[in-house]
């Protein structure tokens, strides 16, 4: 128990190589972030600016408290798809008038800010975060509505966005829409379902049907302004609560609305002194082996993340492939579960189940640092009850109600990913380091398993196994899984909330721990039956 010492030598050759490899990955990530920031490209951005409009991120920056931090979520959404990386929207948590808010902004420079299935996946995840963590939401609206060519996959989740706005409001979580431009057809329900609306004069345009469709439907001839202009909605329909003179004025009004929310966080807040760690977070870059097969000690990570590098380890002598213990980050007390040597055995699973219950008993959030290849397999382990011991851990994780925050710092495979509160287990937040890998199992193992199954099938049918075809199949599977297990691939699908620079780990964890304290931090009253 106590202060973590570090044995890591950042000047060692291996560490230098690790650092170079990690920096190369960060460079790749940064290039994609630049792509996301560039929106629809120079020409579209220039045209947008010529109209006197602010870009999506400029709107957000002007909305935020000056110098406050902002955590952008899902910047890699839709990576490697037909859609622009970032999915034509920006979303994140920022501080407005000292209130942590979920902020979403459509990017009108990318296909008119239309929502494709990935945009909706991002919006729905943002709403989920807002709901479970109690974050007032602010939507900065300027969108052409649904991306019509993909309407088949956008129609249903699109409706859920409006449903969620209503549910947020019902849960006492205020929803605010600042409308900068078009918000028509289905999009009209974003302001329609929001608690507070600000429309920008001469810019906001909100109607169910524009002039052509109205003429088609009823023969009525009506102009844009009388159908859905900001003045009309502010003075006649009442859909707009505040008429903003211009874009900055809308953001000013949005800030005033938040200031008047009388917002109170329901969590207990930080209780410890937010002392910096004793070891330099910069060294995290050299810590992760370039070869994912080489394990590393997560205590070296904790020494660069926890307040004052203080870590009171629980059950250090038992189940030592998983370290558990108590510490704090930016003053917020946490319980930590971190894979120390890849594999989860029975002892590790039982220790984790106990530790998770302890955290629930004392209402302390849990931080999971993933670096696991899975639960141990083999005759001895099956007979030793690895399934029921794994089930203990999964039961504890599944029913734990204290906030879970995960960071995939290495691999995260198979059922161990579930047991470590992987994305399927609803952690409040899940982040990946750029080197992270996650899938049902490793590409070689998966290819090998398929190979063995194919050989078995051939043998069962009395056919000769086609080695050539088998090797090609193995290689194809390995290539596919290698590509799918990367942090970018998972992040592009929305299976984490962001890929983060390892050096930002403490900041990001401190950020989201503060965020989760908007809701009460309360442990579970009961768990499922623990199979003994």
């Amino acid at each position: 128990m106590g202060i973590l010492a570090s044995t890591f030598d950042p000047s060692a050759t291996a560490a230098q190589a690790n650092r170079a490899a990690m920096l190369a990955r960060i460079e790749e990530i940064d290039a994609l972030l630049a792509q996301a920031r560039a929106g629809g490209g120079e020409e579209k951005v220039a045209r947008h600016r010529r109209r006197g409009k602010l870009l999506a991120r400029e709107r957000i920056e002007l909305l935020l408290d000056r110098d406050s931090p902002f955590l952008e979520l899902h910047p890699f959404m839709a990576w490697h798809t037909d859609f622009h990386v970032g999915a034509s929207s920006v979303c994140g948590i920022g501080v407005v008038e000292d209130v942590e808010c979920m902020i979403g902004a459509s990017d009108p420079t990318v296909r008119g800010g239309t929502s494709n299935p990935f945009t909706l996946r991002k919006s729905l995840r943002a709403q989920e975060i807002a709901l479970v963590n109690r974050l007032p939401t602010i939507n900065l609206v300027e969108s052409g509505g649904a991306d019509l060519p993909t309407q088949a996959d956008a129609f249903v989740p699109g409706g859920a966005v409006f449903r969620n706005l209503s549910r947020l409001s019902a849960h006492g979580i205020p929803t605010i829409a600042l409308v900068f431009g078009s918000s028509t057809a289905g999009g009209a329900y974003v302001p329609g379902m929001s608690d507070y609306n600000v429309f920008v004069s001469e810019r906001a345009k909100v109607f169910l049907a524009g002039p052509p469709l109205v003429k088609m439907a009823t023969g009525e001839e009506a102009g844009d302004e009388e159908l859905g202009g900001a003045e009309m909605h502010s003075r006649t329909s009442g859909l707009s609560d505040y008429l903003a003179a211009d874009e900055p004025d809308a953001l000013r009004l949005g800030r005033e609305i938040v200031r008047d929310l009388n917002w109170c966080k329901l969590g207990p807040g930080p209780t410890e002194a937010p002392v910096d760690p004793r070891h330099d977070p910069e060294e995290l870059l050299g810590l992760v082996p370039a070869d994912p097969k080489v394990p590393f000690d997560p205590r070296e990570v904790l020494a660069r993340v926890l307040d004052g590098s203080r870590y009171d380890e629980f059950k250090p002598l038992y189940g030592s492939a998983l370290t558990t213990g108590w510490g704090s980050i930016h003053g917020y007390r946490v319980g930590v579960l971190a894979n120390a040597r890849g594999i989860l055995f029975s002892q590790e699973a039982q220790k984790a189940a106990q530790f998770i219950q302890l955290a629930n008993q004392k209402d302390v959030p849990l931080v999971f640092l993933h670096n696991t290849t899975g639960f141990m397999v083999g005759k001895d382990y099956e007979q030793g009850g690895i399934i029921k011991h794994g089930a203990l851990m999964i039961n504890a994780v599944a029913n734990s109600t204290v906030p879970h925050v995960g960071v995939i710092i290495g691999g995260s495979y198979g059922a161990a990913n579930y047991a470590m509160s992987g994305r399927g287990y609803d952690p409040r937040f899940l982040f990946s380091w750029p080197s992270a890998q996650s899938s049902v199992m490793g590409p070689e193992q998966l290819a090998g398993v398929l190979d063995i199954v194919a050989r078995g099938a051939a043998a069962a049918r009395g056919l000769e196994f086609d080695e050539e075809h088998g090797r090609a199949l193995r290689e194809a599977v390995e290539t596919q899984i290698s590509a799918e297990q990367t942090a970018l691939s998972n992040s592009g699908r929305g299976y984490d909330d962001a890929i983060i620079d390892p050096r930002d780990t403490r900041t990001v964890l401190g950020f989201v721990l503060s965020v989760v304290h908007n809701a009460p931090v309360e442990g579970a009253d009961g768990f499922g039956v623990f199979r003994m």
Partner: protein
Amino acid sequence: MRRLLVANRGEIARRVFSTCRRLGIGTVAVYSDPDADGLFVREADAAVAIGGPLAYLDGAVIIAAARRTGADAIHPGYGFLAENAGFARAVHDAGLVWIGPSPEAIEAMGSKTEARARMEAAGVPVLPGATDVADADRVGFPLLVKASAGGGGRGMRLVERAEDLAAALASARREAGAAFGDDTVFLERYAPRSRHVEIQIVGDAHGRVAAFGERDCSVQRRHQKVIEEAPSPAVDADLRARMSAAAVTAGEAIGYVGAGTVEFLLSGDGAFAFLEVNTRLQVEHPVTELVTGVDLVELQLRVAVGEPVPDAPPLVGHAIEARLYAEDPAHDFLPVTGKLEVFEIAEGVRVDTGVEAGSVIGPHYDPMLAKVVAHGRTRAHAAQRLADRLARARLHGMTTNRDFLVNVLRHPEFLAGEADTTFLERHDCSAPLLGDTRLAAAASALARQAGRRAAARTLATLPSGWRNNPSQLQTARFDGVGVGYRFGRDGALAELVIDGEPLAGARLHECTPELVDLETDGVRRRYRVGATAVNTADGQADLRELPRFTDPAGAVPSGSLTSPMPGSVVRVMVAEGATVVARQPLLVLEAMKMEHEVLAPAAGVVGQLRVTAGAQVQAGAVLAVIDVSEPGL
């Protein structure tokens, strides 16, 4: 003497009180309505409100105040009633001790023509002069037309040639009549490139007059003293002895009792001539006090009750005084009104002041903020320390003549001791000390950042402005300068951009809401940051940050005329729709019994008139909106 009333305000009232406190004499202040919050009022044992802004001229009310408070003596300070023989007589008649010379001496010296005549008779050298304008040729050109009752340059005209004399006489008489109620003028030979040197004298009731050395007040702007010093760099021991003897002769000639000043004009050849006697304590008396070690106010009080005047001690070192004013050298030294937000002058100099941080400088009185006086072993030491303390002084919220004073004190001609009365005509000293305020703006932006982080209640411990996907810099806009910055994940300054130009290698060594230690180009500098100004060792940059948002409801239409002060509308001279020319009077406001004309800022049409006669308005209220004509239409 048990209790002394000071019939004056501001710094001179405080100056007299401080001597009273040391001597164990009780203090009484009188104050006008605009001075109700004055520092001197709070420092006095008792204070009496005497009325509007001009009440310090109301002798009867002041004497009544002395009676009510049991004061047994009155000190007039300088200005107001200090050289009013009638008031001196009234004080005597009321049975109170008058701290000043006899009414007769005041009267004798109040008329410059009479004073000249008496001094000439006593053998004190005077300039060629005449009371009869027909004698102009005898006086010789160039000459000065001066008001007999004058002072402060009013009613004074320089005439180079005989043919200009008539016009100068007419305008001098008009001005003198308006200013002093007496249009008597006289002629005096003008001595170009001369110095203004005056001798401090103190006379006692036993017929003895002692001289306490000279003061050199040559650095003047339009006959207003700017810098004063003792001793004069142009006076040696022999000259001092001769001038002192002349001054003592002058004092003895009129039986002078109390502190007074005999002013001389000193030519380049060492010849000196009598100008006038000031029958009061001078504004610039501190320089004499510092080099003699004598408390002149104490001496005034002692001789007033019959004590003998002591011998003047030898002069030690050199003292220089600078008059710090709320005025704008860039706009013809126009007085500035407003709130002094910060007022700090470092130790090492004497600061005689009537103001403090938070004081409001109004339009009613002379806008002098302080007399700042340095005493050094040598003149160079004194000048250097005074310039330094002034340059570093924190004077926020108002425009001042500080930079101008520092420029004078650092001017080679001044430092060489060669500044004469034409110095400020020949040299423009109004350049700002800190010509480039960009780094100060950057420091201000960074300090404000620190202030916001310190005040944040949410995510306050995270790195300032942290982003996982940084898209733009944090920005701050000041009038004329834009600053952008970004802090890195480790909390260190990662980017600093001023007016679009990145400052490579900028390092931030310390950053608090008040103090910034910023390194640029390998040099660390410390910036002290306030709400409206930044101070460096080299000078002050006045920097107001422009607001991030403007509330359209609070925005004032362009062309708006706002009320400069709270008051009432006396007259409205235009109607809505009227076409007006630039500087045309539109309406008259009355505030504190003073009338102020509100002028059209530019030619145009009166679009809105928001007030009528009789209306009460607050400072900043919109009175009218002028639709300014488009140029070229």
